[in-house]
């Protein structure tokens, strides 16, 4: 019994997206493919313990799911419509069930989930559900949404894929970079949703960063010539590698400069560096590669003691030119502080101070406070810390900022 359950679970994890992608590719009906597949998994759990696991579990599941899909089409459709739909389902599917290797269309499924015609905020949840089989409840909690609302939005997105005719395919060469960006952004959104709990106390969110890493690895593997896919993978691996070091034994927040490198996952860092090198060799720079390169520079500095701030500022310059993001400007200012002092950094920060988006952005106020403190403007620093503390949601980070604030000379 447990063996059948384990096999079903393993197949589910490994092949879920492959099976959904294959079943939905023709009809574009992701919801129907998911329903048929979940029934097939239920049949497997009932059947395998009695008759033993099939030699090719994936093909077994596909055959059963396919039968369910055809049953549904026969039941719900009449006349010509039924014939057409059943024919559509039978085409290709029949051939595939006979063949041991099921073609991997997960990338096409991801391009459909992150299509520009799909609302930006639902792309990551949709991908997590369709490619990895996560249920709406789990996804909802990571994205701080009610399960009912998440379910409704996922349903609407699947309806859109089907009825708007969103293709299951890999875009043409000239469109690929732009379309790939939407896929990578969705994967990164899933990762950061998981990352909002860096202490790893919330199992649901912790798992989500692993699921997002799985997706990033998958895209990098299926599109080995796409530098930004490798860049994103490198960035995520770097972040994940330092997760444990970001909290001390008491659960308190530890900034990068004070982390213990012995707590970093060096295998993961090596993997990140390898991905970044491969990306660099492809000769086309992008946002994720630059961000990964910054992570790499931080690791290098801590490992060797080499104060590579000039290189870090140059990377931030490139990133700022590419994205125009005020968040990048904040980090750039902090690097400038190391290179030219806090005064120069505050001047650099002034350039983005007018950006209305920063008024409610905690890292801006924390950076400002830190720099003011270093120039001796303690009263101003205290006020900036106050704003930062008020904006922070994570209690550990809030305590960290409070400690900094109270360390200011009176």
């Amino acid at each position: 019994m447990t063996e059948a359950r384990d096999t079903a679970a393993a197949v589910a994890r490994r092949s879920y997206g492959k099976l959904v992608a294959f079943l939905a590719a023709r009809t574009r009906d992701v919801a129907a493919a998911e329903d048929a597949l979940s029934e097939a998994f239920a049949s497997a759990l009932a059947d395998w313990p009695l008759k033993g696991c099939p030699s090719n579990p994936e093909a077994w599941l596909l055959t059963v799911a396919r039968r369910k899909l055809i049953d549904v089409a026969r039941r719900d459709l009449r006349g010509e419509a039924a014939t057409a739909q059943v024919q559509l389902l039978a085409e290709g599917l029949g051939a595939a069930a006979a063949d041991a290797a099921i073609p991997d269309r997960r990338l096409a499924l991801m391009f459909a989930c992150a299509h520009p015609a799909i609302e930006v905020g639902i792309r990551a949840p949709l991908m997590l559900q369709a490619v990895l089989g996560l249920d709406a409840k789990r996804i909802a909690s990571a994205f701080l949404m009610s399960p009912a609302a998440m379910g409704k939005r996922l349903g609407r997105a699947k309806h859109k894929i089907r009825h708007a005719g969103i293709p299951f395919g890999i875009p043409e060469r000239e469109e690929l970079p732009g379309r790939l960006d939407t896929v990578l952004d969705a994967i990164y959104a899933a990762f950061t949703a998981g990352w909002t709990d860096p202490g790893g106390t919330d199992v649901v969110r912790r798992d989500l960063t692993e699921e997002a890493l799985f997706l990033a690895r998958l895209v990098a593997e299926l599109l080995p010539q796409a530098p930004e896919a490798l860049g994103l993978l490198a960035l995520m691996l770097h972040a994940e590698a330092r997760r444990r070091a970001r909290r001390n034994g008491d659960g308190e927040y530890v900034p990068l400069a004070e982390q213990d490198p012995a707590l970093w996952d060096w295998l993961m860092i090596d993997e990140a560096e390898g991905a970044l090198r491969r990306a660099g060799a492809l000769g086309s720079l992008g946002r994720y590669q630059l961000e990964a390169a910054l992570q790499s520079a931080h690791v290098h500095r801590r490992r060797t003691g080499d104060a590579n701030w000039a290189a870090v500022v140059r990377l931030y310059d490139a990133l700022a030119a590419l994205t125009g993001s005020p968040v990048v400007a904040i980090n750039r200012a902090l690097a400038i502080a190391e290179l030219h002092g806090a005064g120069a950094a505050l001047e650099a920060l002034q350039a983005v101070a007018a950006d209305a988006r920063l008024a409610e952005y905690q890292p801006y106020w924390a950076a400002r406070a830190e720099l003011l403190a270093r120039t001796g403007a303690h009263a101003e620093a205290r006020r900036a810390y106050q704003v930062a503390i008020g904006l922070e949601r994570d209690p550990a980070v809030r305590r960290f900022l409070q400690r900094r604030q109270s360390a200011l000379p009176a």
Partner: protein
Amino acid sequence: MKYMLMDYVGEAGWPRLPRAEQERWLGAYNAYMEAMAKAGVLQSTTGLEPSSAATTVRVVNDKTQVLDGPYADSKEQLGGFHIIDVPDLDAAISWAARSPTALHGVVEVRPLLDRTAHEREFGTAALQPPDGADHA
């Protein structure tokens, strides 16, 4: 799949354009439709008189209410539409992006009702009532 490409345009600008400029735009529209016809995707195309010629009608308590003007009082108005038959949304979007309207207005891409799915839901080819319609 069949899609309707709806051209939403700011009507106020057109009369203010110099004649030569108007002719340039008309030339661009003609070339666009020719290209769609040549590619074998264009099924039909329809231009509309400006919304100043529009009248809206509804029946409330058995009384026909007729009002001067278009349904939505927005800056951009429906100026015309094309029906095209293409493999998928990406192909429809790439035709929409070539439309001169995309440069000065907005093109809405809408699939035509899928009759197969519709028949599955209603059994007949009846048209769908609008959302929230009261049939009591």
